[in-house]
């Protein structure tokens, strides 16, 4: 299935070369978890502060349990803030 992975700020370095403006559509196995996707792209777990699945925050304990479905958007940031 296809999902959109978005890695922002310093995590952008873990995006594959075909990414555009920090996002890329990737093929993943059905029922894959958030952590499995991030591990597959060598994104350090400890750097994943803000993890949004279709815009909804996923707490650390949910990231191994939350399963993605076709067309989902996964967006991840290290600790950031602004205002």
């Amino acid at each position, binding site marked *: 299935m296809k999902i959109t992975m*978005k890695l*922002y*700020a*310093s995590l*952008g370095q873990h995006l594959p070369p075909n990414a555009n*403006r*920090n*996002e890329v559509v990737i093929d993943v196995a059905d029922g894959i978890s958030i952590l499995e996707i991030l591990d597959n792209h060598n994104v350090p777990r400890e750097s994943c*502060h*803000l993890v*949004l699945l*279709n*815009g*909804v*925050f996923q*707490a650390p304990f949910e990231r191994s349990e939350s399963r993605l479905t076709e067309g989902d*958007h996964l*967006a991840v*940031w*290290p*600790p*950031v*803030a*602004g*205002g």
Partner: protein
Amino acid sequence: MGWTGKVLRVDLTNGTSTSEPLNMEWADKYLGQRGLASKYLSEEMDPKADALGPDNKIIFATGPLTGTCASTGGRYSVITKGPLTGAIACSNSGGYWGAELKFAGWDMVIIEGQSPKPVYLTIFDDDVQIRDASEVWGKSVWEADAWVKSTHQDPMMHVAAIGVAGENKVLYSAIVNDLHRAAGRSGVGAVLGSKNLKAVGVRGTGGVSVKDFKAFMKATNDGKKVLKDNAVTGVGLPTFGTQVLMNVINESGALPTRNGRDVQFEGAKDISAEAMAEPRKSDGKPNLLTNQACFSCTIACGRISKIDEKHYTVQNKPQYWQASGGLEYEAAWALGAATGVSDLEALTYTNFICNEQGIDPISFGATVGAAMELYELGLIDKEKTGGLELVFGSTEALTTAVELTGKAEGFGKELGLGSARLTAKYGRPELAMTVKGQEFPAYDPRGVQGMGLTYATSNRGACHLRSYTVSSEIMGVPEKTDPLVTEGKAALVKAFQDATSAVDSSGLCVFTTFAWTLDDIAPQVDAAIPGDWTTEKLLEVGERIWNMERMFNNRAGFTAADDKLPERMMKDAAKTGPAKGLVSGLDKMLPEYYELRGWTPEGVPTNDTIDRLAM
């Protein structure tokens, strides 16, 4: 100690200036800067006075830590009655001007009256002069800054000035210091313009002493270590700046877009921090050159940008080829998402003009967004706009609008009214995304519920800096709360409001609070000035300040009926994202908030509250 103990009072009507001692009793109850100057304003002027008349006062105020080596200790605030809102205004700025005022030996400058002709003020330590500004009237902030330094042959001066926008009383005109740091909101620039005061140039040769030097060095060094070790203040903010939020808030479905019609902007990724750092296709260079720090700041979140010289906005205009203040998140949102424009270079140019002419980019961008909606509804036509096709997404409309507004020419005069007055003029006041006349910043109250209550109850009109619950609701600092629910938000907003009031009164930057709590700030304040400054005392002072500002507004004629959001936020559900189907739950939060505050259901502090806070 952290205070110089001196207040400079300038009477522009009579052309005099006097020195008086700082009221230390008030300083113990209201700390400094925002709190202390608001106390002076509350005591000295009638809140019903015309904000642009001679009876309004405008105060430039430092905090006890301004000018010290405490990290971010360079802040000052401008406190006055705001012409955009009619409410108490407090606009906070960084750069170097605030510290320089302290070095010159002054804690605050109270400006009153109205000069019969254009003047500027110079402060060289104790030598204070009101001088003729006719030569520089009609010039930009940037020209005024250079002119003052050149006239006095002192490049070390720091200048806070208004541009043509302030002279023409654009209701959201700003006071800009150090070329691109601004006391931006509520129209404080128009107040200077109404007083015929073009600029305040300062040069100080003294320093700032503290109460307990050893304790101060320990407390400030401890604080700096916390900022350095924190991932947000040590890495995130200096590297990516506030603009890193563009994609965060868009992904969260809380980015007000096209005057709040939508909550997500398809062009967000093109105007984000990541886009600023990416080499441009046109010339291979990134928009962002470097970051920059204000006085004594160890975070350094400021953006310094350079526009592509071949971009249509700056062709044959070399004055805009220099590196200057780049887009911060709020400006990028207002100039971009609120108007539907996603051309990063055009937004940077528009931001440069806002700095050059002294305009608040938040209110300006939001006003252009409201005007675009009026245009698309057929309520404004090309005859009104002078031929400008004012449609959402039009880059040319945005960049032309800022040029017109900066010079108060043509349709720019109407844009200078702000969105509340503009939409009312064309019979659709509900299309103004404002509270108390001031435009929203960059968070949609349907997607971040706490911000709806924040905007509705902000003492200076819609504002994110009075209670930045986004920190908790989106970023999880200090702890994560759900942005889509209303439960617990009244207490969260009150806690943020009280703590922020104290921080804004200290001389420090509120961005420290992504890492610091009041436990980190109290020892720094305590070592600098007399009085036993604890976390508890700071919180009490913060609550006292909040209530004092509220009482100023109540005396000015505001009531609970003004603590409301635009109809769109209460009736039109978000169309996309996590908040899809949601409206603001303000009606659920507001009564609980009043109760927690110790206010009547009419939003008035009770006698018990006033007594408890020893006001």
